């Protein structure tokens, strides 16, 4: 039952991310809801389940992106594994630690995706690169408590 709820949540989050309302975008930036869900899954679910969900989330995100190589299918499980290892070394119970982790992960994810875009021949001015790097990451971190609460409720 819980697995179905998790799958439905992923589909709902992916749909929301794809159809994010225009009036809620800042500088054309939208939050990465699937990335928040992957991180939340590491905290509230079993690691193996979280890893499987991270692969699914990455795959789902890549399916709706142009390009044939699924960078997020690789990155999402990698973040899942890294955060799981980190969670065993440091305490993530403080209320600001988890959004900070989301912010760091979103920044790293955006840096890699942005560099991949540049590597494929796209010319992105430095200002726009920084804007695309910082604003969506901060937006993602700002929305993370909501998804964390949702995941916690599903996991309970």
């Amino acid at each position, binding site marked *: 039952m819980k697995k179905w709820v998790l799958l439905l949540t992923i*589909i709902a989050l*992916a*749909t929301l*991310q*794809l*159809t*994010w*309302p*225009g009036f809620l*975008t800042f500088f*054309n*930036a*939208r939050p*990465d809801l*699937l990335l928040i869900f992957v991180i939340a899954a590491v905290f509230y679910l079993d690691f193996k389940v979280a*890893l499987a969900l991270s*692969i699914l989330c*990455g*795959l*789902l*995100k*890549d*399916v*709706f*992106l*142009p*390009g*044939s*190589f*699924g*960078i997020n*299918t*690789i990155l999402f*499980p990698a973040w899942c*594994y890294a955060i799981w*290892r980190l969670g065993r*070394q440091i305490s993530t119970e403080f209320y600001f630690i988890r959004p900070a982790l989301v912010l760091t992960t979103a920044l790293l994810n*955006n840096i890699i*995706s*942005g560099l*991949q*875009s540049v590597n*494929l*021949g*796209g*010319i*992105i*001015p430095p*200002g*726009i690169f920084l*804007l*695309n790097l910082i*604003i*969506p990451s901060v937006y993602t971190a700002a929305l993370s408590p909501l998804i964390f609460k949702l995941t916690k409720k599903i996991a309970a």
Partner: protein
Amino acid sequence: MFKLSRKTLINFILIACAVFLLSNSLSCFKNPLQKTFKPHLLLISWLKREAGGIIFYHRNLVENERLNNETGLLRRRLFDLREVYLENARLTGLLGFKQKSGLRLSPARVIARSPDSWSSSAIIDKGKYNGIRHGMVVINPRGLVGRVAESADNTSKILLINDPSLGVSSIVQRSRQEGLVSGTLGANLIMRYLPKDADIVAGDLVVTSGLSQIYPKGLLVGKVIDIGRDLSGLNCYAIIKPAVDCSAIEEVLVIIP
């Protein structure tokens, strides 16, 4: 800190290999997943549209009045242009030029947008079943929107003109100066490979050149707003405000060759 046992290492390598294979075979997941998502994406986009209509009622009312006034003016201008068109047709016939065939267009609705900030793309509700194929050009009444990047059975992914991976061979309408227009992910486009003494000024209109055989000649790309010189000093570039607002497109037309 990160000490791994032999078993964990083997598991890790196996999972990494599986994930890598999965990311390389992305294309086989695209069609079924996009097909699964289409119904509720359509529903959500319809709900968004209706909710937007209610929430922004006053804005729409004012805009409707403005558009009505504009329509009156445009009707008048259209009448004048029809006269010019008829005159042009007569003269073309006299000169013995071959008449160009009109564009075959297929209307489509944007149902989703790119899930990240590093590409500018949209998903439309028409696919292979509707005759949409990879590489087809997408426009709207204001000008060039982009190009079909992928086509599934029921949906297609379009790369918008402000995506950095899209390059459009274009010319300045006034001086016929050629250049390559590409996106920057921002609100403006950049026209590159212009000679340093290029005849281009702010306010010039930029249209497709028709040289690449992909984009029909004469589609409006945008308006020049600034000109600069690149770091080498050999070429200059122009900043172009696109004719189409890529962040607000809802309906598009796909050109079927």
